């Protein structure tokens, strides 16, 4: 009975359809982050230096991030961030922390090359004005933060059940 309550509370009383859509969104974003992280970790030559040095907005800040003494930290944090956020979203652990981290990382990507009018866009696969895919992915993470789907799918569902079983036992 108690388990049932907890379950209902965590999933905020969503219908199966609602839960499934949110979980699907979570998995897709996690997928994206994790794959980006994996590609970078298997390619030792990868660095964010070029992306940062070609920044069109907040140039002094991004140039500083690209400087010799800072770039290694930036690269490491980026890879660790991408992997950790990806794992968290895919496995359903600390979703809210992952959402905040993801929003932060995406904010960096967005601000370095923002699709603002009058700013050079470089190579993009579409046409953007203020809104681009980074911004949309950030908004999607805001949704995941507001509607975490721990209970519907993922490790925390099991952990909370175990905890529940222990209490009940």
């Amino acid at each position, binding site marked *: 009975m108690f388990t049932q309550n907890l379950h209902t509370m965590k999933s905020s009383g969503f219908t199966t359809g609602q839960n499934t859509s949110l979980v699907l969104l979570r998995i897709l974003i996690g997928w994206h982050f994790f794959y980006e992280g994996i590609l970078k970790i298997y390619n030792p030559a990868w660095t964010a230096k*070029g992306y940062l040095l070609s920044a069109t907005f907040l140039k002094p800040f991004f140039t500083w991030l690209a400087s010799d003494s800072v770039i290694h930290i930036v690269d490491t944090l980026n890879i660790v961030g991408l992997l950790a956020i990806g794992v968290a979203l895919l*496995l359903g652990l600390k979703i809210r922390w992952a959402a905040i981290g993801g929003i932060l990382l995406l904010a960096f990507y967005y601000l370095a090359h923002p699709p603002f009018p009058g700013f050079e866009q470089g190579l993009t696969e579409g046409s953007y004005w203020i809104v681009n895919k980074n911004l949309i992915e950030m908004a999607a993470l805001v949704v995941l933060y507001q509607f975490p789907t721990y209970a519907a799918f993922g490790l925390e569902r099991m952990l909370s059940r175990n905890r529940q079983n222990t209490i009940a036992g």
Partner: protein
Amino acid sequence: MLKSLAGIPILGSIWFAGAKTTVTAKHEREFLLEKLNIKAALPPATGPMSGKPLRLGIIGFGIRGEQLCRALGFATKEWLSEMKQAAEKNRHDTRLSEFLAQENLNVKITAVCDVFDVHAERVVDSFSTADNPVKRFTTHKELVNSGEVDAVIIATPDHWHAPMAIDALQAGVHVYIEKPMTHTISETYTLRDAVRDSGKVLQVGHQHRQTQSFLAAMDIIQKQTLGHVSLVQTNTNRNDDNGAWQYDIHEKASPETIDWDLFLGTAPKVPFNKEHFFRWRKWWAYGSGLSGDLLTHDYDRINCILKMGIPKLVTASGGIYTHRDGRNVPDVLQVNMEYPDFSTGSSQPAGKEKGMTFVYSATLGNQFDRPTYLMGHDATMELGNVISIYADARSTRYADMLNENRIDPEIPIYQYNPLANATDAVTSATAKYFANKGLMWTYRDGKRIDSTFLHMREWLSCIRNGGKPSCGIDEGFEEAISAHMAGLSYKLGRAVEWNPEEEKIVARPGEDLDAILLANE
């Protein structure tokens, strides 16, 4: 349970896919690099700058003379204060800090000679020290025979290059000479004899010979990466007044401050003319137009990589189409140099491929960036400070790899960038033109270095420690003769031929080639 753990296999699959993609790409790259086996090695370091300071004389302290002195470690007070301001305004402007960080070459400037008082006095004023006052000489002859100099830097108008260098060598003085090495055909031979007789070190100012990417390019050619190169395409595109030699005329220029007769030298006698003095590159009497001034850069860039030497046949045409301001050298020029017996090697049956054309195409009325291409049967090399090599879709050497889709003709099979992601503060359009061609800077250990500094250092090292400079008299001879053939062809309106056995440009009966080359019409 399923809902709790279903994320794990997804995670594993993505991991596997990502790792496989990256590792496969890496293996493909390594496979290709191993096949190509290109070594972008550094050149051997030049020798130590130890011993007694070498005493240098500066002959000609105009725009280039001032740059050459900076490469030697001597900047004018005016330049230093200007650069200080520039660095304060823009912290990415590293020209001053790079100059200050430059290695001390252990030389002193003891003498100067310039027909314009302002230029000569600037040297005396900026470079004199308490224990080393710079002495000004009226003529270069007095300077080289003064016993006060071990070596001279010649950065005068073209028509003075060879006479000064010959006098210096005969006085036992080493020479750094700006390009083009000579202004006439005959003096090219006299200068070569003077170098051989004197045993002194002559270096021609083609500083790009120090450019690191060009050293990589030499290895690329040696490994026959491109196959048989049948066409080399080089270009000049400039569209600004400075690039068209419309230099500033100094406010203090007058018959009182300029020794006009001395400036003219062997040139036709004309009344004092400030424009001729400051914009001498615009007239055949003092300069050599595009063929001597800018073709020589591109010719020597390629000659240092291919060592193709003097062409068998040169045709050139052009006109004054963009700067109709009274100049008589062309500002649009196309030159074709034929090398019927030259080959960079072949991947096809013996005898099928032989011969190459070197094309130089120039306009001073457009600055669209046209890269330098070396076009071979197997691949094309785009050459600048960065090198990119594209396999040819119909290549013989890469046929298997192309069939297996391991090579895409649209994507470079090799790229060489000595400093990926570098941000360089390049100031003017003309500076950018030179920088992109690898004519201004090169890189050593990832640091940007003025290639003129390295070129000077090599010359000084040959003087001190022995050795052969990379652009010595033989390279200078090839450069000068090829440029003169282009100038002659433009003037004659016909192909100009080289006789390699006699080492002579072929003249028709009654033709005085030097007179034709220098003619002011």
